[in-house]
């Protein structure tokens, strides 16, 4: 048996050419595919098997050129030269060309082909081009380029086997470098500069390629320039400047390069493309005229976003109730399986695991609904229209559409948003965008908003909308509102820079692909569950331990003794009532009468609660309650007739038992509250309470907010644990929402009002509560200064925002 050949192929192309879809189709690697320029900001690796060869495919970031302007472009060049540590040097390239925008796509192709690696071209978007009346002759194009050109349709899996066969053939033949004619002076200057940098190769540690010398000459910047300057010193700089002057002949070097390349491309395209474009407006043009219109486009955008936030509430409700019931049932089964004397272990499971971390999982449907909309709109091609609309609003802030794309990604998660800023050429604009990304409401904030909105904002209609959906929509804008002045201050102050024009591509509309949408949902849902199962789980357990220990035995003994005394008093009272009716307390007639009485009372209570829940109209409710009260009285009379002499003592015992149970529950709650206050968490909480009081919070909310600094969703688990341990649980409440609604402060007043809930939400909208984001800011800026500034600034802003919100909302009576 022979060992398979091993090869490495770089996959390159403009953004939004279907490159990522082709990568997935070839390698089967799971990857997010989005119809949006600049989404692929990180390269991915996949493996492709070609008969006897195993090919590693590197999916490089989508880029328009190899100029050393933005980090993405640099990465593409360095990957082609095999200079990225840990990534093998490619021995072939697969270039993706969009048939509907051939000229612009061929610009990058000419730069890549200059490297002389064996190459194959995959021609995508042939159907889109056809819709626009454009036909590309792949054979003619192949003759012009001197490399195989294969039309492919990756989503339909068409042309993939031909592409594999051509790739296999190309990898076994040497490639030929493309020579683009730029003019004699320019070409000679490139050759001379190549000689100069080759002389530095020992000091550089590698032999520079000719295309690198070309890039160095034209760009006059970038890491290669820095290295040459470092090792070559002034002698290199003198020679370099002389050559640049000679090559330019008084003109711009970028212009000479563009003219040379586009001249060649023009000749190629003339041979290979047939266009039936008669100046008609395509369907896409007509739809775009509406969707990118200053007024109508903005209105449609706002309406779409409102629809998304409304749906989060109206669709997720039943699913959330289902999950809540399921988790509650599972929790009861698990906890009941533990012997009652193992009180600590039962509390760990009931309050830490099921009361805490499992509560976070209830929010999965809302996350999925949000991403269902985002995935559909992205795949449809709408998101770039939204970016186009927003680009107009960015200019006054000193930012461009290039910043908008990472900021839009940050609405899902700040981390890919921050990594997405690598496409921004200007350092100061990039730093500003990095600083703004954590202000966008990421999906981790969604459960926090929806929990507090569902618990404290009334479910009323406001015109065609629902108040809860409107408040959620508003919460998503809080971060944006604070980001605007922040951007203004930064861009006009310490991070001042010129705005570079941003050319945005509006891709053709496509039918959303169910597979791509499903993949986004799987990835997002999976990552949410993973967070719940790892970091949130760990923090919940730690919070439980801090809130459970130490257990003050004096407190336990004091309350247990009180309960014991109550029990004894109740038993004596029951015996006395029974005796006064001529019964013993275990007389079967009396026991049966009490059982019937309790059943009747339970049925009546449930029917009253249902009526209160279902009937909104006050007059109707009063009538319904009167009707139920009459039915209850009639049933009581029936019980009296049936049980005769046992009825009166049974009724008395029933009333006394209800009072007794309430008194015992009161002692249990007091005991739980006292134990929690004496725990490590309780003591720390009371120490910080003066700081959070002005926000309308008590120490429990303060501790939950502090525990959420590693990750925001932790607050849900922490509140669940703290309030369960503190004896706030209520059997009739709907999960954590009900627990929060019923929570009382030390004076017995409701702990949360609408003002408190709004204050918590504003704090979470503005605070930098995500350790992973701060770590990525440190990595991307290569300094602790930026994450520290971001943390201090956002936390201060969050505190002031929550303070003002609470004080104003309270003054308005909320």
């Amino acid at each position, binding site marked *: 048996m022979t060992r398979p050949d091993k090869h490495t192929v770089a996959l390159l192309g403009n953004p939004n050419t279907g490159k990522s879809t082709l990568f997935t189709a070839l390698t089967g690697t799971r990857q997010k595919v989005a119809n949006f320029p600049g989404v692929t900001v*990180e*390269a991915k690796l996949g493996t492709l098997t070609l008969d006897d060869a195993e090919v590693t495919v590197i999916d490089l970031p989508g880029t328009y050129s190899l100029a050393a302007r933005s980090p993405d472009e640099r990465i593409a060049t360095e990957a082609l030269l095999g200079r990225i*540590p840990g990534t093998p040097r490619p021995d072939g390239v697969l270039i993706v060309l969009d048939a509907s925008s051939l000229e612009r796509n061929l610009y990058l192709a000419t730069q890549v082909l200059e490297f002389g690696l064996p190459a194959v071209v995959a021609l995508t978007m042939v159907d889109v081009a056809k819709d626009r009346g454009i036909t590309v002759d792949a054979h003619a194009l192949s003759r012009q380029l001197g490399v195989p050109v294969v039309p492919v349709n990756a989503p339909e899996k068409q042309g993939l086997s031909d592409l594999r066969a051509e790739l296999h053939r190309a990898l076994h033949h040497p490639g030929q470098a493309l020579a683009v004619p730029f003019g004699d002076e320019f070409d000679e200057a490139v050759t001379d500069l190549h000689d100069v940098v080759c002389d530095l190769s020992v000091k550089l540690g590698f032999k520079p390629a000719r295309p690198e010398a070309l890039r160095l000459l034209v760009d006059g910047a970038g890491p290669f320039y820095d290295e040459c300057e470092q090792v070559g010193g002034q002698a290199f700089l003198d020679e370099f400047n002389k050559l640049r002057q000679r090559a330019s002949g008084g003109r711009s070097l970028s212009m000479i390069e563009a003219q040379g390349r586009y001249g060649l491309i023009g000749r190629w395209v003339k041979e290979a493309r047939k266009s039936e474009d008669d100046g008609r407006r395509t369907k896409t043009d007509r739809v775009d005229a509406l969707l990118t219109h200053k007024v109508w486009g903005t209105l449609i955008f706002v309406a779409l976003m409102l629809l998304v936030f409304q749906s989060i509430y109206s669709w997720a409700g039943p699913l959330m109730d289902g999950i809540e019931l399921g988790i509650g049932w599972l929790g009861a089964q698990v906890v009941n399986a533990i012997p009652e004397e193992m009180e600590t272990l039962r509390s760990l499971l009931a309050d830490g695991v099921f009361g805490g971390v499992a509560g976070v999982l209830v929010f999965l449907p809302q996350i999925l609904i949000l991403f269902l909309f985002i995935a559909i709109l992205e795949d449809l091609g709408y998101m770039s229209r939204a970016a186009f609309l927003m680009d107009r609003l960015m200019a006054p802030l000193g930012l461009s559409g290039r910043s908008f794309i990472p900021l839009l990604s940050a609405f899902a*998660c700040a981390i890919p948003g921050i990594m997405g800023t690598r496409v921004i050429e200007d350092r100061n604009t990039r730093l500003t965008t990095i600083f703004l990304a954590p202000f966008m409401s990421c999906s981790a904030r969604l459960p926090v908003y929806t929990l507090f909105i569902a618990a404290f904002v009334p479910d009323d209609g406001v015109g065609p909308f629902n108040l809860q959906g409107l408040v959620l929509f508003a919460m998503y804008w809080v971060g944006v509102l604070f980001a605007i002045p922040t951007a203004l201050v930064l861009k006009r102050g310490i991070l001042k820079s010129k705005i570079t024009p941003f050319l945005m591509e509006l891709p053709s509309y496509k039918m959303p692909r169910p597979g791509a949408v499903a993949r986004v949902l799987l990835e997002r849902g999976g990552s949410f569950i993973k967070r719940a199962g790892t970091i949130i789980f*760990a923090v919940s357990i730690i919070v439980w331990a801090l809130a459970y220990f130490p257990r003050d035995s004096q407190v336990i003994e004091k309350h247990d003794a009180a309960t014991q005394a109550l029990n004894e008093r109740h038993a004596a009272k029951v015996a006395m009532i029974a005796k006064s009716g001529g019964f013993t307390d275990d007389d079967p007639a009396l026991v049966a009468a009490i059982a019937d009485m309790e059943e009747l009372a339970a049925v009546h209570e449930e029917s009253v609660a249902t009526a209160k829940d279902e009937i909104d109209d006050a007059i109707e409710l009063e009538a319904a309650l009167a009707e139920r009260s009459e039915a209850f009285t009639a049933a009581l009379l029936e019980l009296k007739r049936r049980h005769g002499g046992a009825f009166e003592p049974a009724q008395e015992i029933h009333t006394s038992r209800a009072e007794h149970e309430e008194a015992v529950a009161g002692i249990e709650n007091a005991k739980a509250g006292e134990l929690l206050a004496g725990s490590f968490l309780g003591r720390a909480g009371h120490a910080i309470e003066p700081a959070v009081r002005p926000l309308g919070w008590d120490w429990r909310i303060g501790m939950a907010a502090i525990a959420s600094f590693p990750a925001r969703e932790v607050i849900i688990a922490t509140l669940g644990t703290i309030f369960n341990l503190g004896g706030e649980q209520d059997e009739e409440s709907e999960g954590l929402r009900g627990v929060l609604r019923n929570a009382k402060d030390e004076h017995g007043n409701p702990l949360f009002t609408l003002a408190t809930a709004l204050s918590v939400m504003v704090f979470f909208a503005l605070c930098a509560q995500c350790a992973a984001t701060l*770590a*990525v800011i440190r*990595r991307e800026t290569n300094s602790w200064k930026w994450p520290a500034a971001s943390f201090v600034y956002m936390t201060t802003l969050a505190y002031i925002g929550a303070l003002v919100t609470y004080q104003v909302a309270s003054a308005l009576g909320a």
Partner: protein
Amino acid sequence: MLEYAIVALVVSAAAAFAAWRVWRTLRVSQGKAEGHNCAKCPAALKSE
């Protein structure tokens, strides 16, 4: 005793996991480890 042993084990495991995440986050911040969404990303291997 068994009960306290189980509780102690679970709480220590959670604390150890949290400590490991803090350590890993610090490594990610210095570009020494792969972090969120950075699996196999050549870009993540080279500090800016």
